[in-house]
């Protein structure tokens, strides 16, 4: 009995005939050109009719985003499992860090309470209207597709959860962007560094109003600045509230550098390792009235 068998290289694979041939098979080249012309002309015609193009675009967005959500789900679960395992291993250290953070926050609250009281008193004396309070809605990030041109997130909430276009999206560090497109169960968040993003901002130290324009990189620039000479590197940039999408005073970033008349801003919010985002929406007048009456009753 031989232990080793002589290696026989496999012969060339034979081309198998199509077991389900169609009548059109011999004319496939001509049909392909016709199909190409049909799709090209049909698509071009569709592009010039927004009434047809927009619903199709929305339908495709919803379908593709849902498909990606399903595709990403096992990877997301694996990531969550690994993260949970890491947290469990480092539970003791994490607990100690949280206790310390809690203490720091309590100290900060003690400083902030008198300031808030003072602010309220001054507002009353000067007859300054109180800004409309904003509510938060939390949504999970489904994915952040990236092709080097567009910067956006897909989030697992849509019109069924009460989201509408142009709502501000933030995280605890600062502003992330705004909602650009809304589906039934999914929405697209346009980030601040996308080329299409424009956000009205102001510098905190020099009070210069400007527009934060995304440039397709990690450093968006300030454009339409009132007086560029007054802006200094390291200055904080916050939302100005102009336009009504973003409430005033939300932290955006810091002036990173001013080179060749271009003011680059380093964003505060880190897009890495983000899992959840907060969507701001102004409380409706009826809701505020309801809260007020409830408080009065109590």
């Amino acid at each position, binding site marked *: 009995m031989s232990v080793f068998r002589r290696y026989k290289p496999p012969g060339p*694979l034979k081309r*198998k005939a*199509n*077991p*389900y041939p169609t009548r059109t098979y011999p004319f496939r*080249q001509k049909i*392909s*050109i016709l*199909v*190409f012309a049909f*799709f*090209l002309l049909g*698509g*071009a015609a*569709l*592009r010039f009719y927004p009434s047809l*193009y927009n619903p*199709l*675009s929305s339908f*495709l*967005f919803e*379908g*593709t*985003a849902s*498909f*990606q959500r399903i*595709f*990403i789900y096992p*990877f997301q679960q694996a990531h969550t499992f690994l993260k949970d395992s890491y947290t469990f291993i480092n539970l003791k250290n994490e607990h100690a860090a949280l206790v310390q953070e809690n203490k720091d926050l309590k100290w900060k609250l003690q400083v902030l309470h008198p300031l808030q009281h003072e602010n309220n008193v001054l507002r009353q004396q000067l007859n300054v209207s109180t800004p409309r309070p904003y509510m938060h809605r939390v949504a999970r990030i489904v*994915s*952040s*597709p*990236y*092709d*080097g*041109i*567009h910067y*956006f997130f897909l989030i697992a909430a849509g019109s069924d959860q009460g989201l509408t276009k142009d709502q501000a999206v933030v995280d605890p560090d600062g502003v992330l962007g705004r909602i650009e497109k809304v589906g039934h169960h999914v929405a*697209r968040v346009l980030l601040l560094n996308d*080329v299409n993003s424009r956000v009205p901002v102001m510098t905190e130290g020099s009070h210069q109003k400007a527009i934060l324009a995304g440039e*397709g*990189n*990690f450093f968006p620039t300030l454009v339409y600045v009132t007086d560029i000479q007054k802006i200094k590197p390291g200055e904080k940039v916050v939302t100005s509230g102009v336009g009504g999408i973003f409430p005033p005073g939300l932290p955006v970033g810091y002036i990173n550098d001013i080179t060749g008349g271009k003011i680059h801003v380093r964003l505060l919010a880190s897009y890495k390792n983000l899992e959840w985002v907060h969507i701001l929406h102004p409380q409706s007048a009826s809701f505020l009235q309801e809260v007020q009456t409830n408080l009065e009753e109590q």
Partner: protein
Amino acid sequence: MKFLFLTLRGLPVFSIICFIMGGSCLHIGQAPFLPAFYLIPTYYWIIFRPQDLPLWSLFFVGLLYDSLMKGELLLSSILLMLSWVFGQHIRPFLIPHSFFFIWGAFAIYSLVYTSLYALFVGGTPLVMLSWIYGVLLYPFITWLLSSLHLRVRLYV
């Protein structure tokens, strides 16, 4: 049996969709993997098995890519369909040559595709980094696809 036959014939399209879905979340720093990453299976199937990658399927693949990537609808569809039409004329010259020749042809094809895509979308030079990734990853992805190809060939 016909269902299995159709499923196996749909594998090329499915593999391209998987590359789009998976590649959309891959990037090293600011350098993205797409669009050149999904051109690898597209090119492979156009050259080696065009009968299972019909022209109309590339139209829908392009629509899917554009709607996922926030691009102008139909741009990728047109580019992919043009790739298919050109591929039909070029493949007889490519197939008898060595792997390195086919790899070089992919480098040229993906460079033209990404340049056109970046030109129409108004992209930054970052898009061109995806071309480098695509060319570097081509042998590994092709090895995976050829394994799949041989298995499909046994049945279909």
